[in-house]
């Protein structure tokens, strides 16, 4: 058993402890600190890539402290990494490396705390992806959470980061405690904490109230992290105020990890036991599509660039959940590739926003209009990434979305394609509007948002406004990530490989055999058959459609004042006023109320449909 899975988690933890212990020495040696952090995360990325390749032939199973299972009962903790799990963790490590490289020049002065927290964040994410034990999942979830709360409040001298961090910490903690209740509940029935063992134990009988409610509670915490409506309210607050390199990680992988956790819990534990596939698909699909459309609508009215990108993350999280809800391997493969593509373009967009903040000292779309014309390379990278976000062929996002749509038609739900195209077009339109207005000075600046005037003073404290050239360590990661999103989409035979990985992820019996008996199935079989993963004319049409729709909406957003039809006081997005603003109120009591109401609704529906 090669120790790589253990080392992938332990190496960043040891490095974080070392940096903290050597703080007095390292305080003055900023470059040593940065270099150590970048090398550690790059090393972790390489380790995880190796694990991913090995896992393609069978899950990589690692038992800690040598306690192997006996008679189908596990007494220790295991890491059970399939190719999708290891791939997601590798993506996280790649984004951490890019962020740390970006931070090289972005922060003029930074304490060692930043590097320590980023490394513990990375370790938490890696552990979360690789683990096969439900309580271990909770522990890494909390480590991810605590590091994220602290990183959000990195500039406590401003009001916004404190509100964002408080709302983030309180809502996600409530979610974590609800998940823990679910874990205790399922432990009370099965007496096990190993996912494979639990799955085998509860599949033997028909699901009763306990199994359904345990599923509900465990999923709730993960969906709160995954920013699904109505649990999403913390995300815009946290993203608007966290330092830009940290936002890269939040939007790029942290939210997606919540959804991965939900999928993992379903496929490794509850899938076979719960049955009622149509009901599960219905519930998750409804939540996902609602999130996708609502997030897109919020996105259109936003003028704060980072908050705009945050709402677009919510919208995409909804699309990912919709893809997972289809329960097919093609759908899951589509989500996996879409997550990768989205992470790369979103990271690139945030890094470009960071460059704008560094050079011009603002992220207010209205006041930045036309001022970034001299940031030519940044402008090109931003626009390319925005087109990637709008699912233009041949980006990875286009490929992923195409497979989700193909899978939906196979399951007789082709109508969701319309909603997916609509959300992508709205989101892409908003981001392209920013690109056109800020970097090219097209059209008219959007109406000033009175709230923005207060917020914009906060941004200048994050980085020093620099009048010179954009440093290479800032523009190169942004450009490389955007290019990578296109490169991933162009990989030949990507669909077949990823779909094989998805089949393995969905085969509960095969997973059980691998973990508890050490037998790897050469041909895993999922619930639904594997679909055709080629690029079809329909998917190209959909990709071109959403990109074209995005361009049209961006044009409307920039030029609406000059168009004869629309001049009568109709600003795109202005009509979505009162109730939508009231929903995102910023008051923590409201957020907790919506969580309780949301859980009760989902619970009620599950109780009625899964008896």
């Amino acid at each position, binding site marked *: 058993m090669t120790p790589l899975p253990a080392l992938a988690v332990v190496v960043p933890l040891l490095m974080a402890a070392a940096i903290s212990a050597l703080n007095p020495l390292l305080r003055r040696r900023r470059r040593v600190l940065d270099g150590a952090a970048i090398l550690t995360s790059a090393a972790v990325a390489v380790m995880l890539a190796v694990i991913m390749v090995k896992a393609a032939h069978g899950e990589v199973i690692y038992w800690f402290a040598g306690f192997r299972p006996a008679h189908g009962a596990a007494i220790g903790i295991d890491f059970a990494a399939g190719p999708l799990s290891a791939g997601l963790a590798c993506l996280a490590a790649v984004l951490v490396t890019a962020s740390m490289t970006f931070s090289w020049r972005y922060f003029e002065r930074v304490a060692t705390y930043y590097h320590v927290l980023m490394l513990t964040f990375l370790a938490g994410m890696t552990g979360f992806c690789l683990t096969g034990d439900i309580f271990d999942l909770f522990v890494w979830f909390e480590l991810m959470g605590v590091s994220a709360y602290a990183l959000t409040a990195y500039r406590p001298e401003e009001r916004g980061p*404190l509100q964002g961090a408080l709302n983030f910490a309180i809502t996600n903690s*409530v979610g974590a405690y609800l998940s823990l209740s679910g874990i*205790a*509940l399922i432990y009370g029935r099965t007496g096990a904490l190993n996912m494979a063992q639990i799955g085998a134990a509860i599949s033997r009988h028909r699901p009763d109230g306990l199994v359904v409610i345990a599923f509900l509670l465990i999923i709730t915490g993960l969906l709160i992290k995954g920013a699904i409506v109505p649990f999403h309210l913390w995300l815009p607050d946290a993203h608007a105020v966290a330092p830009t390199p940290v936002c890269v990680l939040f939007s790029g992988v942290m939210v997606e990890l919540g959804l991965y956790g939900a999928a993992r819990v379903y496929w490794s534990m509850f899938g076979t036991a719960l049955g009622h596939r149509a009901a599960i698909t219905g519930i998750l699909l409804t939540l996902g599509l609602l999130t996708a459309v609502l997030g897109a609508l919020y996105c259109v009215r936003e003028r704060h660039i980072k908050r705009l990108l945050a709402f677009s993350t919510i919208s995409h999280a909804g699309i990912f959940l919709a893809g997972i809800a289809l329960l097919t391997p093609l759908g899951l493969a589509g989500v996996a590739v879409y997550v990768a593509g989205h992470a790369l373009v979103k990271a690139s967009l945030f890094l470009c926003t960071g460059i704008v903040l560094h050079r011009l000292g603002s992220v207010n779309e209205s006041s930045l209009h036309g001022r970034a014309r001299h940031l030519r390379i940044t402008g090109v990278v931003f626009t390319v990434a925005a087109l990637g976000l709008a699912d233009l062929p041949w980006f990875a996002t286009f490929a992923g979305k195409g497979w989700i749509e193909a899978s939906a038609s196979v399951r007789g739900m082709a109508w969701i394609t319309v909603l997916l195209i609509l959300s992508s077009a709205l989101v892409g339109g908003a981001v392209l509007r920013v690109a056109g207005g800020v970097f090219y000075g097209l059209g008219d600046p959007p109406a000033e948002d009175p709230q923005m005037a207060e917020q914009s003073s906060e941004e200048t404290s994050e980085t020093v406004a620099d009048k010179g050239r954009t440093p290479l360590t800032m523009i190169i990661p942004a450009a490389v990530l955007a290019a990578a999103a296109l490169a991933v989409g162009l990989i030949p035979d990507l669909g077949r490989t990823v779909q094989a990985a998805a089949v393995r992820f969905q085969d509960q019996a095969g997973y059980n055999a691998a973990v508890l008996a050490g037998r790897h199935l050469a041909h895993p079989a999922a619930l639904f058959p594997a679909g055709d993963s080629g690029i079809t004319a329909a998917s190209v049409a959909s990709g071109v459609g959403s990109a074209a729709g995005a361009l049209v909406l961006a044009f409307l957003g920039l030029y609406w004042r000059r168009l004869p039809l629309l001049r009568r006081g109709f600003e795109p997005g202005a009509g979505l006023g009162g109730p939508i603003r009231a929903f995102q109120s910023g008051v923590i*009591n409201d957020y*907790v109320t919506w969580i309780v109401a949301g859980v009760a609704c989902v619970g009620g529906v599950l109780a009625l449909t899964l008896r």
Partner: protein
Amino acid sequence: MAFFPFVVVVWILAVGLYGMVTSRHLMHLIMCLIVVQSSTYVLLLGVGYKTGAVAPYFFDIPVHTPAVDPVVQALALTDVVVEAAVTALLLAFAIQAHKRFGTLDPHELVQLKG
């Protein structure tokens, strides 16, 4: 009687969440979060209890005496530490929030909305 501890679990959860939703002071809200966590401890320890069994410490009793479940106790121990850590962090946020906003009323701690 066999079900009563679990009713207590739900009650503690309800009380804690009620406190959070109606709270007008951040310290009170954080304490209510701790109450919510406590319901999890009661559930964990309640699930592992065996009537008539002893604590799982075999220092001075024979090894095969029926004992309660040690795993949930270990889990509860882990949870206590996690909760203490999160609470300390939240209290630090609260101190800074008081300095920046001048108040600890959650309804006033709003810089970003809409």
